């Protein structure tokens, strides 16, 4: 790999131990993927340091202790506890205390402690051609496909890139990999974020780690729908970039999305495919669920407005626990706008920094035994997102009931599951 003088100096340790460690890791990563050089990045979405995994918060503290500082604007991914009010989730204080140590380390390093999977709703909004890195695959696909930024699906090394301000030039940082591989003909335009998450889930399962191009939508999806679409694709497949011509910069047409090459045969996607995803994740009994959840990925301000409008003046069923998950930044905006009061008055819990699959409900974690974490018994979770559904099944290892946002809210109010079709008929 060819390094600039400044990059070589970092590798040699002239810029301190943290930058040396970061650059050494990035050089090895670049070599593995045949990168010719590094590129300067403009933004990073980095690992929180997760309290439910052994020595994982310590990993972030170690970097802070080595003098690491963020060279570029950096946001922080979702965490394992609501660090402000963990009691509402039933988490032990020991977990929240450990998670707060990660927040302290981020404060020292200069990373904005957003603790969210949707940093864009909290103001981290990279633009066209910004080279960036992200540890969260939903952030990668949104920034690539909606904003036109350039990101791979990274892991821990997002923090190394943020420290060095560099990333090896490979994968989705290169034009040659930002081209369509599959063409999907959308026969029925979905309505709302849940439908779009199911559409994405279906497409991701076919496209794998390719670049799906979508044609035929009758209208431009909302930002929330685009977010849900990408989250679905990144969950069932390894999709890092989808191209919706006219939306995804700089692709104005289907032909441009395939860089002028012959178009592949298109794959039709209709209502039946979306319904199949709902059915796949409706495994629980309609009258036996423990939690109803909305806000995956973490809710935007617009979604908070929608929840408040649907809940205004109504009451959650006394036997139902209803969770709204969002970032602390959006929660603050919602509070200022009076939305939080409306949502909480209905009996909902607004949780930030974490979500059902990211908190102590997950059974696939490996916390320090001294924390005394015992995942509560959960039979079924009602969700409005295919992403949350997939990971509830894999990580909480219980049944799911997947419906629309409206269906989830009506479920929470009535105490009986309202599926996507029933919700649409209301």
């Amino acid at each position: 790999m060819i390094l600039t003088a400044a990059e070589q100096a970092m590798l040699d340790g002239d810029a301190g131990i943290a930058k040396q460690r970061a650059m050494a890791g990035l050089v090895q990563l670049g070599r593995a993927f045949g990168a010719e050089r590094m590129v300067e990045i403009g933004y990073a979405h980095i690992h929180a340091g997760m309290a439910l995994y052994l020595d994982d918060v310590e990993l972030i503290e170690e970097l802070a202790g080595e003098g690491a500082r963020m060279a570029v604007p950096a946001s922080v991914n979702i965490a394992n506890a609501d660090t402000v009010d963990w009691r509402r989730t039933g988490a032990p204080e020991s977990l929240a205390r450990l998670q707060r140590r990660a927040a302290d380390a981020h404060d020292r390093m200069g990373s904005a402690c957003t603790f969210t999977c949707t940093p864009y709703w909290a103001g981290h909004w990279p633009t066209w051609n910004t080279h960036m890195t992200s540890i969260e695959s939903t952030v990668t696909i949104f920034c690539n496909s909606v904003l036109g930024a350039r990101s791979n699906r990274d892991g821990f090394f997002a923090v190394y890139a943020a420290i060095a301000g560099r990333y090896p030039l490979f994968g989705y940082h290169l034009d040659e990999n930002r081209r369509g591989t599959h063409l999907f003909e959308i026969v029925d335009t979905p309505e709302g974020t849940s439908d779009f998450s199911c559409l994405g889930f279906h497409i991701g399962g076919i496209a794998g780690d390719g670049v799906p191009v979508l044609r035929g939508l009758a209208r431009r999806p909302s930002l929330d729908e685009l977010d849900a679409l990408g989250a679905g694709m990144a969950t069932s497949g390894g999709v890092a970039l989808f191209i919706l011509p006219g939306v995804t910069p700089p692709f104005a047409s289907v032909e441009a999305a395939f860089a002028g090459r012959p178009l592949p045969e298109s794959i039709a996607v209709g209502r039946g495919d979306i319904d199949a995803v709902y059915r796949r994740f409706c495994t629980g009994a309609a009258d036996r669920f423990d939690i109803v959840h909305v806000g995956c990925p973490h809710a935007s301000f617009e979604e908070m407005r929608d929840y408040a409008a649907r809940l205004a003046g109504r009451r959650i069923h006394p036997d139902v626990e209803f969770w709204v998950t969002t970032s602390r930044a959006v929660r603050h905006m919602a509070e200022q706008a009076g939305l939080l009061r409306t949502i909480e008055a209905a009996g909902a819990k607004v949780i930030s920094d974490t979500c059902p699959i990211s908190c102590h409900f997950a059974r696939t974690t490996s916390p320090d035994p001294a924390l005394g974490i015992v995942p509560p018994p959960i039979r079924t979770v009602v969700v409005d997102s295919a992403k949350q559904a997939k990971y509830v099944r894999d990580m909480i290892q219980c049944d799911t009931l997947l419906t629309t946002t409206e269906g989830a809210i009506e479920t929470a109010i009535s105490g009986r599951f309202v599926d996507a079709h029933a919700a649409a008929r209301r």
Partner: protein
Amino acid sequence: MTTGPTVREIAARGIVDGRAEGPALVAREPVSFLGDVDIRSGRIVGDLPSARNAIVAGRVLIFPYTSGSAGAWRFLYQLYKHGKHPVALVTEAVPDPSVVQGAILAGIPIVCAPAERLIGRVENGTMIQVEAAGERGLLRIMG
């Protein structure tokens, strides 16, 4: 005249630097570190018919390619933290960036694209040395 055990050297592409030695564990299916391997026990719990219930700890894990979530790095690193990690990975295709990042963090060497096919030919338990330095990777099949 006695001859020592035969050692066969196979060139490969170096992905993550390091040296390790251990008995082979061969999986014919792609491996997802998020989901297929239990962190605390190192046991393969995923749908890998050729290696189901095998323990990856201490093994040179040989498989075609990595699959699954970008969270794979954390699970590979957690296997290391629990002392249940494979000592080296040998793959046919270049693994996902997330797996490479986890391996660098945990100090687990990776080589890929060996010059000879190993899957279906190397027996489980065969001692293998793995060496990777830069682009250069080398496997030594012992005995």
